């Protein structure tokens, strides 16, 4: 990923910021330029950082840049306000992931552009720490 492209998406990925359509109230993460209702005016919304695993898969043949993390879990997470997003789930053995598992957002390294390139950070989820 190019440095400007990473940088453009820093705030939504660092802080879990989504967007809400002003016309119909539909919420998006990641942001979309046009709503399904046709609306193009949006306001920023902070996503809830807690939710539960709906379903998941274990990535054993990762794409370029993610090799050192395999095997890792990618899950569909339903946030407590009903929004759904895809995220890695970390700090857990892949065999221990279950539907309904309570998870919370954390800030982690997502990938590195080699040993001399930039380090890309963003959100992931982990089993909730009580």
């Amino acid at each position, binding site marked *: 990923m190019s440095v400007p492209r990473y940088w453009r998406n820093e705030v939504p990925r660092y802080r879990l910021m989504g967007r809400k359509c002003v016309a119909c109230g539909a919420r998006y993460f990641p942001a979309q330029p046009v709503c399904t209702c046709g609306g193009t005016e949006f306001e920023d919304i902070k996503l809830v950082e807690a939710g539960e695993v709906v379903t998941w898969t274990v990535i054993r043949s990762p794409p370029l840049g993610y090799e050192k993390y395999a095997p890792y879990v990618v899950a569909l997470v339903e946030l407590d306000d009903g929004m759904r997003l895809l995220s890695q789930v970390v700090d857990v053995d892949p065999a221990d992931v279950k539907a309904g598992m309570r998870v919370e957002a954390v800030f982690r390294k997502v990938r590195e552009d080699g040993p001399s390139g930039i*380090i890309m950070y963003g959100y992931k989820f982990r089993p909730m720490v009580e």
Partner: protein
Amino acid sequence: MKTLRQVGIVGYGAYVPMYRLNAAEINRMWGTSGAPVEEKSVVALDEDTVTISVECAKQAVRRARIDPSLIGAVYVGTESKPYAVKPSGTIVAEAIGATPSVSTADYEFACKAGTEAMQTCIGLVGSGMQRYAMAIGADTAQGRPADALEYTAACGGAAYIFAERSAETVAYLEASYSYVTDTPDFWRRAKEMYPRHGNRFTGEPAYFKHITGATKGLLKETGYGPEEFKYAVFHQPNTKFPITVARSLGFSVDQINPGLVVGKVGNTYAGSSPMGLAATLDVAEPGDRIFMVSYGSGSGSDAFIFTAQDALRDKRGGPNLKGFIDRKRNVDYATYLRHRGQIIQ
């Protein structure tokens, strides 16, 4: 040192990654028999000083119950910056929503970089330059395989938000003191992977001299005796040093025990004494007076006196440091090397 207006901690957070390497596993690897700590913390594959700092900072903001855009300074004290050139503080400030009206920098003073950042934040708030200022001490410390430091060099951190003293303050600052000399007991040259140290030279002329100097200096300045503190925190590179220095200065083991986390997490370097203070605040009651002294090789110590207020009880909810210490998974030596990026793929 005292501020022109009263300053206190309005929110704090501390974090330790979930993986642990037991001293027995290091002994198995090298045929040795050391155990300066029981076990030490190890980062996950996707953690570094910045992610640890953000974890601590988010906890501190949540407990402080403030709008993060009002934080006017974010300083990260560490000796394990992910970038040699590029501030860690900018990433932390962006992640918590403190940008763009904010001053940030990374501090380096071996294990006291975190408390050096605290001194700066206290000065900024005490002078009225900033309403809120955040200091973080965090590290993913390096120890050369088979070196004595391999038993203890660990990962973790703590964050503190300072503000003018009010009913929202969890603990207010009575006074602070810094004691520094040029003492080359431990260092890492540019582009070197591991630090070097002077073995026993790191003890008497380094750790003990500077902690003793800072402690005596602050006690003299304030007129307090060791018995007037409910708790004390001394930099904890291993279990033995803080107990020895506490006793020699007239403090009891009971006073330091709540903050003595090194046996379970190892030496988190710039995070060490700040994590000890967090563990102490997690159990302190309003009115309790806490003495805290860091030590950083090179060398120096920062000493602080904090007194807990009523807001501490109300604000310290959510997972505390003990929760993160208890959430652990032990790994073998090979997994430890993988997590530290020491296996060539």
